[in-house]
């Protein structure tokens, strides 16, 4: 057994896992406050990454200017999406809401393909890359950077929900919409804000991944990968999203290790999270931290 490879893969898993955690957090944020399952989460990453790439390459903006500009665009994009598409869907059955986000996902994926083609494109060099030696393992500095950014985002989320007025309003809305409304919270703006925040943070994750791996339509697969993560963690738990992200990230890489060492099935890396997903749904449908639905007649 190759211990060094296993350790290396587990470290990779933790790094990818934090990114899964960030995307899953965005997903949970939307689900928690608006009860919409967002199948277009992966497209947020894609749109963010392509917009930033376009600003940097076409207009040759410096990164410190293009990056905030992208985030500002994503705020407007998220709000517009909520107001134009999702607001008319309030009160519609669950299948309609799911389908509308699936429609958005197809539409934006094709739109990005139309505008930017299907080849992988790389960002201009923003930070110099080198490998860092941690505990005898070579880890690329870009990965370290992405992990640090992810952790910063998570901490920011924590403080936002704990201490800011908007964060408190969002938690109140998630807890009970009617009570929140009666206390003077504008549920409309909470809905718009949650989509905006989700879009911005997803775009941030998209740019980070794009800088490491290049931008391509493969980014939108993160939106599918997020399902095993949120189901494992519980659909409405932010902590669960982070923990689930780490577990699924490591699981993927351990599956890869088992595959290459003993099983030789191939492609287990991609499919293992979905087997895990089915098992979790059968055994513990509300995940590790999710709240159970109690139905009254």
């Amino acid at each position: 057994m190759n211990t060094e490879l296993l350790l290396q893969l587990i470290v990779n898993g933790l790094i990818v896992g934090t990114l899964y955690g960030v995307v899953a957090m965005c997903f949970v944020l939307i689900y928690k406050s608006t009860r919409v399952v967002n199948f277009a989460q992966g497209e947020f990453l894609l749109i963010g990454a392509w917009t930033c790439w376009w600003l940097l390459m076409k207009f040759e903006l410096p990164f410190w200017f293009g990056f905030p500009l992208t985030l500002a665009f994503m705020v407007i994009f998220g709000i517009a999406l909520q107001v134009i598409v999702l607001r008319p869907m309030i009160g519609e059955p669950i299948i309609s809401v799911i389908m509308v986000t699936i429609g958005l996902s197809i539409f934006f994926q094709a739109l990005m393909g139309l505008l930017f083609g299907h080849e992988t494109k790389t960002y201009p060099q923003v930070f110099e890359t080198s490998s860092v030696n941690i505990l005898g393992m070579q880890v690329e500095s870009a990965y370290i950077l992405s992990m640090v950014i992810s952790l910063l985002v998570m901490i920011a989320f924590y403080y936002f929900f704990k201490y800011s007025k908007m964060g408190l309003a969002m938690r109140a809305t998630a807890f009970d919409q009617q009570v929140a409304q009666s206390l003077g919270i504008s549920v409309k703006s909470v809905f718009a804000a949650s989509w905006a925040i989700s879009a911005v943070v997803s775009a941030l994750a998209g740019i980070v991944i794009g800088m490491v791996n290049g931008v391509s339509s493969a980014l939108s697969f993160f939106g599918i990968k997020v399902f095993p993560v949120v189901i494992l963690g519980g659909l409405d738990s932010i902590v669960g999203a982070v923990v689930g992200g780490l577990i699924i990230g490591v699981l993927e890489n351990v599956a890869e290790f088992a595959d290459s060492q003993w099983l030789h099935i191939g492609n287990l890396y991609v499919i293992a999270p979905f087997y895990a997903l089915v098992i979790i749904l059968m055994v513990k449908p509300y995940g590790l931290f999710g709240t159970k639905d109690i139905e009254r007649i």
Partner: protein
Amino acid sequence: MSLGSSMRPCGDFRTTYASDMTIFATPVTRYLAIAFIIALLFVPLFGSPYMLNLMIQIGYYGIAALGLNLVVGFTGQISLGHSAFFGFGAFASAWLNNAFGVPVFFAIPLAGCLTMLIGLFVGIPAGRIKGLYLAIATLASQFILEDFFARANWFTGGSAGAMAEYLTIFGYTFDTDQSYFYVVLFYVVLMFTFTSNLIRSRDGRALIAVRDHYLSAEIMGINLTWYRVMSFGLSALYAGIGGALFGHYLGFVSVEGFTIILSIQFLAMIIIGGLGSIYGTILGVIFMVLLPEVMEWSVHLFSASMPELIQSLAYIKEMAIGLAIILFLIFEPEGLAHRWQRIKTYWKLYPFSY
């Protein structure tokens, strides 16, 4: 629910349960439906190959979409993995024919039954979870089955794909569009008649009860788990037959064809057509089959001024699908079947629309 229920003439009241449960509300609609099917019999004599090809597509997609409508529209469960069943049917039929020499005539229904077993298996989570969680579970089953297709060389031929023989009965081979049209038409009529009758039966009403209020349904003595799992099995049966017809039409089944996009297209068909409407299903399928064609025509129309459009045709088609789903859900969530009813009511009351 029944065909043309709003076409009922004024003063035509039902006095028995039997007459309330007829498939066609009035004799006129019944004769019209029969006349329509007879008219379809003559289409191969006059239709162009292009038109026949489209109609055959509408046929096999229609059967599969009807199955999906049974599980989504009538039972209220969400299935995001329908194209995997469709693909399984196509491979199963080709496999039965290639590996065991089962004649294609028997392989098509047998493939449907095999797919039904897979559907029952995939449907097991439906006994335990529902709504959103079920949607995600079926999404997982879609990826798992897709992975299985790519892996199982003995079954699908792996990346090379599987050859599917043409259908042969008593030495006559259905290898042209003209002849195959009748095969598809036969199955379409069979499956749609079967569904119309199923919905009128005890089992069909149980499915609708599960959709409308599952707790009340359970209190009334309907076995919730059984009907949920059964609806998945049934939908897979339809998808399997549709897929088998698809395979034997093209003569070749490739592993790449049955992605999540096709599943979404199936869902789009029934949402655009109308959830829980049998003839709406066909309207939705016609819409979704014609939409890419219309996009192609319009792109060719504009290609003189913008030649780069031709290269991005695939993206434009996909965008049109996404946009159609969004616009229908916002502006006509009840689907084309509902729109059709409203047009009929409008003309019935014309010019006094109030």
